[in-house]
């Protein structure tokens, strides 16, 4: 069976061990999770949406995965200040990822958004972020922690449980919800851990954690990728 094409916007990366100069990369565990799910993972170049028709570029794909990455420029969600901890901001990356989120939802392409990807969808729909969760004690970096998933949500269906132990790496989190988004999972400290869009006509789930980190050994996490690829196949 032909593997459904899953577009994964590449991350601009200043260094990569195999290359002499700056790279466009995606995390190996992420790509492998899509592959295990039966998808054909395709990194796509973040082009300037002012000059290229991103919707047209997405037409050939069966699904989209918005991966993790650096922080979104705070002005994108209306902030006039910028917290000192905000890192790795790239205007072109932001512009492209935001456009991919909007176009994928509009085009009814199945979409899984991870970590920064969740934040991208939230901002794309008019939401905002807490620029910093308050330092090493409060942020979710190098953290394996439990989340509670709301029964009946797509996230709960995909993961197959209402509690999950998940791997996180982020220092920002959702503040104001974007239009139409609902919370599908939450951490003990109240951090929004998953978002859904009830009005979306295609499969869409956004998680603040990194399911790819544990997907090779935790089938509930692999199920998120499996569900993306299954939805991509039937779309």
């Amino acid at each position: 069976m032909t593997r459904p094409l899953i577009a994964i916007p590449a991350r601009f990366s200043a260094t990569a061990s195999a290359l002499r100069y700056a790279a466009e990369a995606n995390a190996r565990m992420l790509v492998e999770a899509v592959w295990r799910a039966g998808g054909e993972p395709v990194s796509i170049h973040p082009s300037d949406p002012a000059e290229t028709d991103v919707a047209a570029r997405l037409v050939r794909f069966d699904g989209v995965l918005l991966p993790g990455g650096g922080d979104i420029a705070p002005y994108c969600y209306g902030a006039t200040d910028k917290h000192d901890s905000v890192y790795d901001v790239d205007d072109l990356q932001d512009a492209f990822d935001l456009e991919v989120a909007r176009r994928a939802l509009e085009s009814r392409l199945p979409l899984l958004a991870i970590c920064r990807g969740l934040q991208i969808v939230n901002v794309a729909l008019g939401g905002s972020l807490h620029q910093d969760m308050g330092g090493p004690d409060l942020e979710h970096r190098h953290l394996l922690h439990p989340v509670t998933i709301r029964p009946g949500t797509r996230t709960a269906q995909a993961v197959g449980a209402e509690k999950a132990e998940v791997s996180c790496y982020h220092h920002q989190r959702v503040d104001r919800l974007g239009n139409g988004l609902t919370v599908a999972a939450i951490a003990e400290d109240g951090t929004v851990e998953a978002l859904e869009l009830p009005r979306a006509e295609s499969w869409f789930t956004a998680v603040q954690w990194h399911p790819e980190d544990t997907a090779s050994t935790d089938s509930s996490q692999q199920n998120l990728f499996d569900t993306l690829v299954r939805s991509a196949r039937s779309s």
Partner: protein
Amino acid sequence: MRNVTHEELLIRARELGLPTQHHIDGRSESGGGAAFAVVAPRDGQVLTHVPDAGEAEVDLAVAAARRAFDSGPWPRLAPADRGRILLRIAELLEERREQLALTISLEMGKPITDAYDIELRAAITTFRWYGQLADKLTDESPHTAPDTLALVTREPAGVVGAVVPWNFPLTLASWKVAPALAAGCTVVLKPSESSPLSALLLGRIGTDAGLPPGVLNVVTGDGPTAGRAIGLHPDVDVLAFTGSTAVGRHFLRYAADSNLKRVWLELGGKSPNIVLPDAPDLEKAAATAAWGIFFNQGEMCTAPSRLLVHSSIAEQVTDAVVRRARELKVGDPLDPAIEMGALASRGHLDRVLGHIAGGRAEGARLLNGGERVLTATGGSFLQPTVFDRVDPGMRLAREEIFGPVLSVLTFDDLDEAVRLANATEYGLAAGLWTSDLSTAHRVSRALKAGTVWVNCYEEGDLTVPFGGMKQSGSGRDKSVHALEKYTELKTTWIQL
């Protein structure tokens, strides 16, 4: 709310749409650009920002209320029609009960179950009660000489400025707004900076229920600017305030310096709770004493903060109170299983901790608590705190702490109990536990307090007035008597 899990409430809290604008003249108003952050005391995080009103925004709100009173339909409606709209407000409060309870719990830290069961019930009942009362009032016609007719009528007093605190944001707003509206007044409501969100929602509900534009305006801002502007405003006819005695004095000065507006104050307290050896049930007396001081994190003007116990039963009663303090579940206000939430702000927590440190330095004995807890959450949580060996001269026994801090004092005879009870500048409330009918009446008469509870505490309903004597304030909220604050008596004498 009891069958909803903590996690589900955390999620619903994240999905709340929180208001971010003034409610003036029936519309949302963004204000002049200045804003302040509303911080959730449960985790110290910013919930949202609301406008920080300057004089111009207060002017706008007062002008809207003035127009609505001078030329709008509200004061001229048949009382039954005003009543219907108040009843509709009660219905909408009921419909949006969960949203309002979550908002209150988030903005000021009280347990969600208290917000839902107690705060919202009070607000709903208040609007319903005054809605039902609106067309059941009568005026007077005294018996005068046969060739004369005297009419003594109550007329709406005009524009009411209502300035309310954060401890019961909707209850206390409702206690001002509902009778003022029933009387035919129009209102500018300024909630505390610590609890502006539920009040803004109330403003929106008023308009949704059919209040004409300008009848209920809500402006958010601080006391020194927005509160002062309302207090000094020449177009505000009545100022109704609940809050600290210090700020109450400001409002009296503002009135003196402006238009001599009527100022009604519901201020602080240091309420005594007297337990006599013949109390019908000492366990119940102790449990109620503990409940009373720890309910709402002790942030209550009527909190029974001085437990006066007869020396013969002091150990027994104190032990029972401390036991209860130790059992009390302190934690995230959004957890339906907890009994005490977070103090309203870090600043307030620090003030309460200052009182506790002062009490220790004065030589009172700390029996329980006294420390901040759950610090890792970023929230302002405090252990239920009990001191005994408190001397009547100590600051611990005299100053309002407005936190979960109980002072136990002992006495040897009834006269001493009454003397101790009244040895305060406040006179808001008092409790008394006795089986003797005669003692109950004699001591109740001797207590200088607006409310005396016998063999109970913090009980009552809308039929009875609430307010203080001495420096606890003037005028009464609740009951038919609240209307006295929002009406002026007019005598019409007709020679026939």
